[in-house]
């Protein structure tokens, strides 16, 4: 059956993915390319933040020792974060932000479909709630990929450049390691390598509708985030996010 440490490690991945992407999206708030888009993107950031809190609160309960969602978010160093590298990549121009979101949403929806039938009822419950939100995120980001891909020459070039640039970070989502396999074996999680075919087919279809090219699925893929080896961007992001908790230890806000 499930081992508490494995489940904890698994929940951190889910929570950190949502938290780190939400943090990135929060950087756009008030500076989006159009008022309606700004508001829609903030909605996504809020959904992901809500999901992060549910995953991290559950992880904290398993960890015991007085941990809570905030101690996990604010008092871990970068090498203790377990998000995939894709999500810590900087916002770049808006095309980069849209493509990062699209790659993740397409995976996230598939992942939550698996987790909805988790044998851990708490995981199943969170996934069920999150999936309703993520289905909307995926519809939105897919639609933007099509419209910006098949928009102007400038927008197509920006979108293709973003796809090419972020592509090497897409493989990690499907890379199964011991934590994933333990989750799959115990029935509270799934083997992510099993999602890649469906993900590729969906991503190819949307990119093609947006007149964009799918890079080679055989390309070299970056990995390490799930094990705590991050890009240079994460520690900088965390130094900003964690500043108040770190400089006022023990304070309540």
């Amino acid at each position: 059956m499930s081992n508490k440490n494995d489940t904890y490690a698994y929940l951190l991945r889910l929570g950190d993915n949502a938290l780190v992407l939400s943090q990135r999206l929060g950087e756009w708030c008030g500076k989006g390319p159009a008022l309606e888009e700004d508001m829609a993107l903030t909605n996504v950031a809020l959904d992901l933040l809500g999901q992060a809190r549910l995953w991290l609160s559950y992880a904290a309960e398993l960890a015991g020792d007085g941990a809570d969602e905030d101690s996990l978010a604010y008092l871990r160093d970068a090498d203790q974060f377990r998000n995939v590298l894709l999500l810590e990549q900087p916002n770049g121009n808006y095309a980069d932000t849209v493509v990062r979101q699209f790659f993740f949403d397409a995976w996230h929806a598939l992942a939550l479909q698996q987790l909805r039938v988790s044998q851990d009822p708490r995981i199943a419950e969170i996934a069920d709630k999150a999936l309703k939100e993520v289905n909307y995120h995926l519809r939105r980001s897919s639609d933007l990929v099509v419209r910006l891909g098949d928009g102007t020459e400038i927008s197509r070039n920006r979108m293709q450049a973003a796809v090419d640039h972020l592509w090497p970070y897409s493989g990690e989502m499907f890379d199964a390691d011991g934590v994933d396999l333990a989750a799959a074996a115990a029935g509270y999680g799934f083997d992510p390598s099993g999602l890649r075919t469906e993900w590729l087919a969906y991503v190819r279809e949307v990119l093609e509708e947006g007149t964009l090219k799918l890079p080679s699925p055989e390309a070299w893929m970056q990995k390490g985030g799930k094990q705590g080896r991050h890009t240079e961007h994460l520690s900088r992001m965390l130094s900003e996010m964690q500043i108040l908790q770190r400089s006022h230890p023990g304070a309540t806000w």
Partner: protein
Amino acid sequence: MYAQMVDTGTRVAGNELDAAEVRFQKRIDDGIRVEPQDWMPDRYRKTLIRQISQHAHSEIVGQLPEGNWITRAPSLKRKAILLAKVQDEAGHGLYLYSAAETLGISRDQMVDDLHSGKAKYSSIFNYPTLTWADVGAIGWLVDGSAIMNQIPLCRCSYGPYSRAMIRVCKEEAFHMRQGYDMLMSLCRGTPEQKQMAQDALNRWWWPSLMMFGPPDADSVHSEQSKQWKIKLFTNDELRQKMVDQTVPQAEYLGLTIPDADLKWNAERGHYDYGAIDWEEFYNVVKGNGPCNRERIATRKKAWDDGEWFREALVAHADKKSKSKLQAAA
């Protein structure tokens, strides 16, 4: 307020009003709402465009000072509250731009006017947010003042504006409570946190009083706006209300309002308060506030950086409607 010193155009003496204007004023006096399709004097239309667009710009520029702390919010719960708040302000901007559009100006035109400096926004958003406590102080004092001004505007003479105000006021009341709650946590926290709250009050108090606009004696356009029922209380009346409401709230927090002359006047039944530095106010309005340049530069950059995005969406929509037409042909 969010709309300060709104120019109402040249005043026309009563006997020079033509018959249509007299009928218009009579309807307003009778409490009948003006709707977009109704006839209205040109000066009423232009004044409202200035007032509503200034209010809309204030909501949009007002996202920036607090947005400054989203990535640094000290707990996930506070981060969620702040994200939602800043998003609400964008929503307020949106309703207000739509209300102004009913008067025959486009949103693009209003945005251009903001970026060129032709249109103003509230002076308050030209002050910096230096610590987390500033986020609480803005909710408490700035949203608090906004409510005070906007609750009467829910009854203003122009239908779309009054309806926008009703939606906006509900959310502003939330914002104020959340800001106060944030400060409450700081005041009950460590000495450093309490000091942070006091420092925020010290810096935001006077700008918040200035937010209501110049003293009545210097408000040249107030009379006309009152007659048209697009301003229901004078600047000084609202400012006094704000002081009277806020003093006990500050006492409850255990914070000191930075005004040595502040004291209860039993005869008036109001608090007396010290002299406001109007020279500072007029300078901030003129563009010399600590953050005027930065705020507009940030909005302009967001707009300019987003141009390719907006053009792409239009181009895509054009392609789609063309291919639909061809399919139908």
